[in-house]
């Protein structure tokens, strides 16, 4: 970490030296612009925010332009303002809060069920070879069966109620999670484990007091990634077999040719994913202060 920071400072500093006091303002501006596009160059956080804003604004402007120009019929592609209006009436009159709550509840339950079972299995599979041999080839096989293909089976087994949606999220995330957790645990440096062994640690103590805390940042990152997948499977489950939730609203909107609501639904789902991702990043930052750049 410290190495890359030093290098960044060094790269920033050297062109300044070349400029000298007599360099014109324009020349300095030019060299600053060049620096941004250098191979593996750096940006200040303000410059980064500017580019990110442009990245979001460009497709929205394009969208508005295509809409205003009338290239695509409004029925198939409503404009940004139409979508906003529609979103407002969804909140006001069409039970958005209810759709949101039920979807969040399904994702949370499915994800938690997956996490609670996958975490101990991953820890054990990443630590003990026989457990790895017992679990991993089987899981590897199952994870190649698309979770979507389990929908009919889950409906037969769990009915059309909440359980079938939770089961689909579970099937979509659990097997991957076990394999990824096991990988995270395997990346704990052997020297840390052996150091604890020479200090008299038992297998159990080393598992709880060395392997788990050592792997914790990677385990949380795996949670962040798999939670994203859980959202995908939620929408699949709600589109195929539900009568409530965000995914169902999108499907229903299609039946009534409400493209504006489809757009609103997609954007909402995207935002929820973004928010949850940022929350987990913040949690990572708060829980593991020792990983911050010094």
């Amino acid at each position, binding site marked *: 970490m410290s190495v890359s920071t030093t290098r960044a400072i060094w790269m920033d500093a050297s062109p300044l030296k070349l400029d000298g006091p007599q360099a014109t303002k324009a020349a300095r501006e030019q060299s600053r612009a060049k620096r941004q596009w250098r191979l593996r160059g750096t940006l200040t956080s303000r410059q980064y925010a500017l580019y990110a804003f442009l990245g979001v604004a460009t497709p929205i402007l394009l969208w508005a332009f295509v809409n205003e120009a009338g290239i695509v019929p409004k029925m198939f592609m409503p404009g940004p303002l139409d979508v906003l209006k529609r979103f407002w009436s969804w909140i006001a009159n069409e039970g958005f809060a209810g759709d949101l709550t039920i979807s969040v509840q399904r994702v949370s339950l499915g994800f938690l069920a997956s996490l609670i079972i996958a975490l101990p299995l991953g820890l054990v599979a990443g630590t003990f070879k026989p457990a790895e041999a017992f679990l991993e080839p089987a899981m590897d096989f199952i994870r190649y069966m698309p979770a979507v293909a389990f929908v009919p089976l889950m409906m037969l087994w769990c009915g059309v109620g909440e359980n079938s949606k939770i089961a689909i999220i579970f099937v979509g995330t659990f097997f991957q999670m076990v394999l990824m957790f096991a990988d995270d645990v395997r990346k704990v440096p052997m*020297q*840390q484990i052996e*150091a604890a062994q*020479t*200090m008299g640690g038992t297998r159990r103590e080393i598992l709880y007091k060395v392997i788990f805390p050592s792997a*914790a940042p990677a385990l949380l990152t795996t949670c962040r990634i798999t939670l994203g997948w859980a959202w995908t499977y939620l929408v699949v489950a709600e589109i195929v077999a539900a009568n409530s939730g965000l995914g169902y609203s999108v499907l229903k909107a299609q039946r009534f040719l409400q493209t504006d609501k489809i757009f609103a639904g997609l954007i909402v789902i995207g935002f929820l994913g973004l928010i949850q991702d940022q929350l987990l990043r913040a949690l990572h930052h708060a829980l593991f202060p020792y*990983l911050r750049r*010094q």
Partner: protein
Amino acid sequence: MTNAIEIKGVFKSFDGKRGRNLVLDDVSLSIAAGTFVTIVGASGCGKSTLLRIVAGLESADGGIVLVGGKEIAGPGVDRAMVFQDYSLFPWLTVAQNVLFSRRLSANKYDNLALERDAEEKRAASLISLVGLSASQDLYPSQLSGGMRQRIAIARALMSKPSIILMDEPFGALDAQTREVMQDLVLDVVEQEGTTIMFVTHDVEEALYLGTQVVLMSPHPGRIDTIYDVPLPKKRDEQMRIDPQFLQLKRTVMERIRDTVGLSLDRSAVGSIEAGA
């Protein structure tokens, strides 16, 4: 003098690409209590494997290892180990790393409060012994490689082990830091009176630190020669350029080359250049 470590007829082989690979072939070695024994040899001579067997991290296929007269069965708190790198716990501060062993049940307390207090004092004095008092609340990622190894040494000393096993502990450090660390280790050992078994590939380091230097030959690993280092117990920088020291360094390096059967014919290099 009693022997702190007694290695008797140890064999070890690993599964290699072409069948079993004999790494240690009937290795026997006695290390007297309070001595600093360094082990050198070409790569593949099994020096690290031998150290790991003494640590209890690997088991021998044959032979026995006695520590303090008792046969070892796995790792134990009487034998601390310092690794080359990555052995500190990154989520713990310097002080917490040094005090890590208190989290383990291997430490039993008669009077918890009193002994914990004593432990904290010992940790603080060890951290100051390795010169890192100002950094005790930092995380390992905030320290340089040399500072991290100082902490690893302080942590190894924490449980007052009779033996410290060191597996190329300075191998990842730059040359200047390495020399500073060598003097630090000598000072610490003098103060604590610990027996040291120290594996390195650096002949100068082996001679500067060791009262005895054990040279191992590779394929299969065997003890080749044991050199007594003719230097006073208290070492200092000047000895690195002492003629006797340099002579022994040359002898050991040549012997290592002989054990690999790798005596480079340098005149051949000259003839290539002349031909071109």
